[in-house]
C-alpha cells in the first residue's frame, strides 16, 4: 500500500474533525476525498506532519510518516511561482533542485507550455501557473502525489492536461491522493471517491455496476400505484415551503449524501425523491441519467467534452457553464440518443 490511514481520527479543540477511518491507496490508483475545507486542510496538515492524529496512524509505503519524505509530493492550492523567471528557467531550476533526469523539453511538452517557454511566469494565466507546479512535481517524481483542489478554477485546456497526466501516473504505478471540495471534479478525476465528514468515511459510487436494478423496478411500481394522476411538476423543499418546478426549468440533478438536489439557474433545491424516482419521472422530458449521481436535462447541454478516452464531461449552457460528469457506459447511450452511432 502506497499510503494508508489506519484507524485515523482527529479531534481539534475538543471537537471532532473526523472519526476513525481506514483507507488505503494502492500503487497506480487515483483516489479522491470529497470533504469540506476544514477537513481538507486538517488532512494536509497531517500529511505534512504539522499536526498529529488523535488516534491511529498514517503509513507511507508501510512505514510511519517521516519528516520531509521525498516519496510524497504536494500540489498546494495556494502555491506560488517565481514570477520573474521564464518558463524555461523555472523548469531548469526545478530539474536541478530535484536532481531529476527528466528532460526539460519533455516536461515542457507534457504541460504544453512550449509556445510560452520564454514568457515570464507572472505573465501566465493562473491555470498555466498551476501547470508549472505540476511540472515541478513531475521533476520531483514522488510515489504518492497529494493534490489539494487540483482542478479548482482550471481552464479547459489545463484540465485536459491534468487528466491525461493522471492517466500517465496510473500507468507508471504512482498513487494520487486528491483532496477536493468539488464532487464533480473529484468524480471526473478519481477512480475511487470517498466523502469524509464528522460522521465518517463513505464511498461514493462511481463505478458502472447497477446493483439496484431490482430496487428500481420496485420503486417504479410503487410510484405507479401511488400516483394515479401524472403530474408533471417536480416538488422541492425550501425551508417549510414546497416549491414546484417545471421539468424544462431544471438544469440538472445531483445526488449527494443520499439526497438529490435540483439545480435551477445555479441554485440547488433539495428534492423529495431519489435519483432513480426522478429519472423515471423525467425521462419523457428529455432527461438523461448521465452518471450514477447525476441526471441532466439534455436540452441544456451545450458541449460534450472528451478529457481522455474514458472520461467525459457535459457542459451546460446555463450562466455558470456548469460541467457535470458523464460516465463511459453512458457515453455510448448518449450517442444513441443523439442519433450518432
Amino acid at each position: 500500500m502506497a499510503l494508508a490511514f489506519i484507524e485515523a481520527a482527529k479531534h481539534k479543540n475538543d471537537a471532532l474533525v473526523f472519526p476513525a477511518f481506514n483507507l488505503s491507496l494502492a500503487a497506480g490508483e487515483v483516489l479522491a476525498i470529497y470533504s469540506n475545507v476544514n477537513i481538507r486542510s486538517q488532512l494536509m496538515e497531517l500529511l505534512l506532519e504539522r499536526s498529529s492524529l488523535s488516534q491511529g496512524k498514517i503509513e507511507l509505503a508501510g512505514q510511519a510518516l517521516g519528516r520531509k519524505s521525498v516519496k510524497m509530493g504536494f500540489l498546494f492550492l495556494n502555491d506560488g511561482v517565481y514570477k520573474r523567471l521564464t518558463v524555461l528557467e523555472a523548469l531548469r531550476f526545478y530539474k536541478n533542485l530535484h536532481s531529476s533526469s527528466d528532460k526539460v523539453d519533455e516536461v515542457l511538452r507534457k504541460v504544453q507550455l512550449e509556445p510560452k517557454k520564454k514568457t515570464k511566469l507572472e505573465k501566465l494565466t493562473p491555470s498555466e501557473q498551476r501547470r508549472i507546479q505540476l511540472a515541478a512535481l513531475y521533476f520531483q517524481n514522488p510515489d504518492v502525489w497529494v493534490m489539494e483542489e487540483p482542478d479548482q478554477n482550471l481552464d479547459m485546456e489545463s484540465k485536459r492536461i491534468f487528466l491525461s497526466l493522471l492517466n500517465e501516473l496510473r500507468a507508471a504505478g504512482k498513487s494520487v491522493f486528491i483532496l477536493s471540495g468539488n464532487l464533480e471534479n473529484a468524480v471526473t478525476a478519481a477512480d475511487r471517491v470517498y466523502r469524509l465528514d464528522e460522521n465518517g468515511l463513505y464511498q461514493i459510487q462511481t463505478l458502472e455496476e447497477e446493483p439496484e436494478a431490482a430496487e428500481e423496478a420496485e420503486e417504479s411500481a410503487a410510484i405507479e400505484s401511488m400516483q394515479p394522476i401524472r403530474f408533471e411538476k417536480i416538488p422541492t423543499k425550501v425551508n417549510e415551503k414546497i416549491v414546484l418546478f417545471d421539468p424544462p426549468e431544471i438544469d440538472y440533478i445531483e445526488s449527494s449524501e443520499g439526497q438529490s438536489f435540483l439545480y435551477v439557474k445555479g441554485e440547488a433545491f433539495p428534492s423529495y425523491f431519489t435519483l432513480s424516482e426522478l429519472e423515471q419521472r423525467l425521462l419523457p422530458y428529455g432527461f438523461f441519467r448521465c452518471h450514477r449521481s447525476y441526471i441532466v436535462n439534455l436540452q441544456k447541454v451545450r458541449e460534450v467534452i472528451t478529457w481522455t478516452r474514458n472520461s467525459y464531461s457535459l457542459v451546460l449552457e446555463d450562466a455558470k457553464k456548469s460541467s457535470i460528469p458523464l460516465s463511459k457506459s453512458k457515453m455510448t447511450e448518449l450517442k444513441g440518443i443523439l442519433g450518432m452511432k
Partner: protein
Amino acid sequence: MNQSIKRVNAIFQKDFKDFSRNLAVSVVLFMPLFVAALYGRMGIDTLDAHYMIINLTFAMVATFVQCCLIAEEKEQNTLRGLMLSPASTAEILSGKSLLTFVLTILVIAVGALLSEYQPENLLIVSLAIVLSSFFYIALGTLLGLWAKSVMEASVIILPVLGIFSFGSFLLPLAEKYPVLGVVEYLPSVQLIEIATKVENGAGFSETAAQFGIILVWTAAAAILTAVVYKKRMVD
C-alpha cells in the same frame, strides 16, 4: 556532495536571474557605490569614511537584499516548495546566501576602488570583511524569516541600518553616557578597530580579540537563524 553543490547552484542561479530583474531591490547596489565615488572624487579618505561605506554596504546589500530574497520567497509561497524539496536546510540557506555574499564582496571591492582605500594588510582586512559579511547575511535571513512581505522587510531594515552602519557615530558620546559603551562591541565598530590596528602595522595576534567578538556575533546570528527557520518549517 556533488548533488548538494548542484542544488545550491540551482538556487543561486535562480536567485541571480530573479534578482537581476527585480529593479526595486537591485538598485540598492548602486547606493554605496555612489557614495564611494563621491567620497573618492571629493578626496575624503579617512579610515572612518571608508568604513562608513563598507558598513553601509553590509546593511544595504548583505542584510537588506538577503532579507528581501527570503521575505519574497515567503510572500510568494515558494519557500514551502523549497522546504519540501530534497534540499536540506543547510543547502537551502547557503544557496540563498551565496548570491548576497557574492554581491556584498563585489560591491565592497568596487567601492574600495572608487574611494581609493588601500589597507596595509589586505589579508587581515579581507578576512575581517568576509567574516562580518557572514554576520550581516545571517541577520538578513533572520529578518527575512521574520518579515511577512517585502514591504515589511524594507521597513525593519531601518533600525539595522541605524544601529550597525551608523552606530560608530555614537562612540564619542560614550564618555558622557556610559550606557553607550556597548556600542563599542558592535561588529561594525570592531571592524573599524581591526582596520585602525592594521594601518598601524598590527598582525593577526593583535587583532584576535576583535575577530573573536565578530565571530561571536556571527555564531549567535547563525544559531538564531537556524532556530527560527526550523520553527517556520513547522508553521
